[in-house]
């Protein structure tokens, strides 16, 4: 009986392994290598079908949640989309746009933008096509817009399509977008397309695209690669699109492995089990460099920063004094932190628009580290240690403030440094950490940022729709309250001058005019210390020497993926 039980267990175990092996295929690896040996019995699809194929394995530390452009705006979804989907215009390694699906990027000069800024016209290339050979037409553009704003679809965000009032398609190659008011960040439109000829019948049948098979299994795309396979939690494969309308890719297959742990990603890269890693923590950079792996950084608009809460209702009274905020800025040695903890790979940003030099003009300089000057400012502001407990106070109120952020390691390290350095000038910093879903909980959910619990809030952010410089959450109207519980102004900042400028810039389609406005906003931010840069937060890539031709953009990272190749 027991022997039979053991036998049964063994058989079940082997069956489980065989079933798992049969559950899917794969393909990819290190470099161009012969296909698997004959002795390795193939159970997945396609293996060994070619004598030799170039397979590049990339590591994503976070799995994309969907492949559809409609249902996720997440970073990994967005960058993966560039393998198999397409954008109206792409961005090069200098984050400069160039036409991709269109013949030229609309401007006032070429007539693509009307004089009043309310009509923008796109002229599509006549040779662009989906991977199944169907042409990409203005109908696809209109359908993408319709599906994004249709309330029957539970899309992740309707932005920026909800700014378009209507779209006219006078012919297959012309897309005319109509706006109610000038919409400056219009270039953030068309970052991924959905095929009308595939999905319109689905929408008509189901009344929604929420459950469309295409969302996670996009059989038809328009990028240099075709989607082949995605096994949740494990891997995704993309094979070269031989029907691509531009030059074909040199690498046959992209194999993306999902490895959520940073140290494991490093080990896999060092061991040669992967050729490209993304989101590399600075702490891992030295180990990777020692193994001959190149670390490449690319500005993507993001900067880690301290956001000051300046609310009469919620904030510590000291936070309302601009000189106190300046004192805080001068009490923390950001440069040394970046040198010691971030290994000198990034600098202290002086501006929220640090990675947009055109708009960060004149370039803002960070406040210098000068604790003595900080102490003087605090003394002048009336914050002195009158009771000798080591913490400054004023009118019976101790200078004790709360600094909250997520649980990311490097953020906790910064909190510890800031706590120590602020203590040296007599400011007591209480540090708090939250999981992201709690940290970002809304006013209605009692989230700590939106309910005024934190005097200093820390996270990494970029202008909305980078490389567009747009910002919106400093608007007075964005302050959360019972009537508007989703308000995004967690700083409870209402500066009328700033408010007017933020609204103005979002309607300025002339880059030169907009530059002036953003420069004014930038100056206010600096002078009134509403935001303090901690470190630049570019995309950090680890690239194996086996990969050649690699360039990255901060907006469309894989803009030249077709030129990437593998060395033997």
């Amino acid at each position: 009986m027991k022997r039979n039980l053991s036998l049964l267990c063994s058989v079940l175990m082997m069956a489980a392994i065989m079933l798992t092996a049969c559950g899917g295929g794969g393909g990819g690896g290190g470099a161009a290598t012969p296909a698997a040996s004959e002795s390795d019995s193939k159970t997945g699809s396609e293996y060994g079908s070619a004598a030799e194929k170039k397979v590049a394995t990339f590591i994503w530390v976070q799995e994309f949640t969907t492949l559809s452009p409609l249902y996720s705006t997440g970073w990994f979804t967005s960058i993966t989309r560039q393998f198999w989907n397409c954008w109206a215009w792409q961005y090069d390694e200098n984050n400069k746009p160039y036409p991709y699906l269109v013949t030229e990027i609309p401007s006032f000069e070429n007539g693509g933008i009307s004089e009043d800024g309310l009509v923008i016209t796109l002229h599509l290339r006549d040779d662009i096509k989906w991977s199944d050979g169907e042409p990409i037409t203005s109908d696809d553009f209109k359908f993408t817009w319709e599906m994004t704003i249709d309330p029957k679809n539970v899309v992740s965000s309707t932005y920026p399509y909800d700014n378009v009032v209507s779209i006219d398609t006078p012919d297959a190659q012309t897309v005319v977008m109509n706006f109610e008011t000038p919409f400056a960040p219009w270039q953030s439109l068309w970052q991924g397309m959905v095929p009308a000829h595939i999905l319109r019948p689905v929408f008509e049948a189901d009344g929604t695209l929420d459950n469309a098979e295409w969302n996670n299994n996009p059989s038809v795309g328009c990028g240099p690669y075709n989607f082949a396979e995605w096994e949740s939690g494990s891997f995704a494969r993309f094979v070269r699109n031989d029907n691509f309308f531009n030059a074909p890719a040199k690498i046959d297959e992209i194999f993306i492995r999902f490895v959520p742990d940073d140290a494991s990603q490093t080990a896999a890269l060092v061991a040669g089990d992967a050729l490209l890693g993304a989101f590399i923590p600075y702490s891992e950079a030295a180990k990777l460099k020692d193994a001959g792996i190149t670390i490449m950084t690319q500005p993507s608009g993001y900067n880690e920063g301290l956001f000051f809460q300046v609310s009469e209702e919620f904030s510590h009274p000291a936070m309302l004094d601009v000189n106190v905020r300046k004192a805080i800025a001068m009490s923390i040695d950001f440069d040394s932190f970046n040198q010691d903890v971030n290994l000198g790979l990034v600098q202290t940003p002086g501006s929220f628009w640090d990675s947009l030099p055109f708009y960060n003009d004149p370039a803002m300089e960070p406040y210098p580290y000068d604790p003595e000057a900080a102490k003087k400012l605090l003394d002048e502001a009336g914050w002195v240690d009158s009771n000798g407990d080591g913490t400054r106070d004023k009118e019976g109120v101790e200078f004790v403030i709360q600094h909250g952020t997520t649980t990311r390691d490097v953020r906790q390290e910064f909190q510890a440094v800031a706590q120590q350095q602020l203590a040296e000038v007599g400011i007591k910093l209480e540090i708090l950490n939250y999981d992201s879903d709690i940290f970002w909980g809304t006013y209605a959910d009692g989230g700590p940022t939106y309910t005024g619990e934190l005097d200093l809030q820390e996270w990494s952010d970029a202008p909305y729709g980078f490389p567009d410089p747009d910002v919106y959450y400093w608007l007075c109207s964005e302050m959360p309250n019972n009537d508007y519980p989703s308000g995004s102004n967690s700083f409870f900042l209402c500066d009328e001058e700033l408010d007017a400028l933020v609204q103005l810039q979002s309607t300025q389609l002339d880059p030169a005019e907009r530059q002036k406005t953003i420069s004014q906003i930038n100056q206010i931010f600096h002078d009134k210390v509403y935001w303090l840069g901690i470190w630049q937060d570019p995309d950090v890539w680890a690239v194996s020497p086996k990969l050649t031709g690699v360039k990255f953009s901060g907006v469309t990272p894989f803009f030249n993926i077709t030129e990437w190749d593998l060395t033997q």
Partner: protein
Amino acid sequence: MFRYVIKRLLEGIPLLFFISLILFLLMMNVGDPIATMGGRTITRPEDRERLKRQLGLDKPIIVQYAYWLAGNDWTTVDVDGDGVPDKQGTRKGILRGDFGTSLVTKKPVTELVGERIPNTLILMVAAEVVTILFAMLLGIYSALRQYSAMDNFMTTLLFVAYSMPIFFVSLASMYVFAILFKRWGLPYLPTVGMFDPQVGKTASQILSHMVLPVFTLSVPYFAAYSRYIRGTMLEVMNQDYVRTAKSKGLPRRQVVYIHALKNAAMPIVTVVGLDLPFLLGGAVVTERIFAWPGMGRLFFDHVSRSDLPVVMGILMLVAVAVVLFQILTDVFYAWLDPRIRYD
């Protein structure tokens, strides 16, 4: 026995209901699933409002629980997020086998769990088998040679193994057996994943990729189990019936493996029986470090995004397994010890 099993199953129903209610209430307070939907970018207020209505997260907790439990196909729901219920609901509820749809991936929970369970089982069952097998061998060996130099050495080694955190064992073993062995020109093991993409997802690939995670999972349990077996074996070996068996002149092997081990195994069956249901839950740390696509990672990925349907689905699966395996353990107990009667 049959009546006993039925009675225990019936007793499990209110228990599971109570567990589901408590877990649901806890999950409703862990975070905002919409907060992290924008990835690196904060979700826009307009999208937050719309998504909250479309996903039904604006409903009172008790209503959400009722929908999760019994479905919403008996009422109208707000599909387009305009605040007005306009369409018949489609959810059947967990009582009718509908675990719902992930808020994050929009995939059915049963599909997500179904994809991961085989991966988790082959890893966890292998780890459990390795653990029990080696723990038995070492535990018996130590018990039979109590206080010998080898027993003392193994005791020290096992305490070290037991006290090492899993993430340390994982990364250290990966560094030694994957990176250093490769550097030294020795046969090396893969770092992450279930297979080498150059080769494909073959049985041999899965086996080779299982070695390090199974080793990592086994180390602490192996240390604990072997000490446990040593203790129970020592206790049994001093019982009168074993002394009688020895005095009858039975071979040592027969005394140890037939007479002593069967009785020493009784408490171990309880421990293993309690462990088995948790095999379904996977191993969060090990699966994460070795990028093994199992239930532990699924749970971690979705709990960090407050994806209530997926997290509740996994927790209820484990809860049901705990109830069932406890009954199975009792049945197995009776099979091992004929003196036990449940009727």
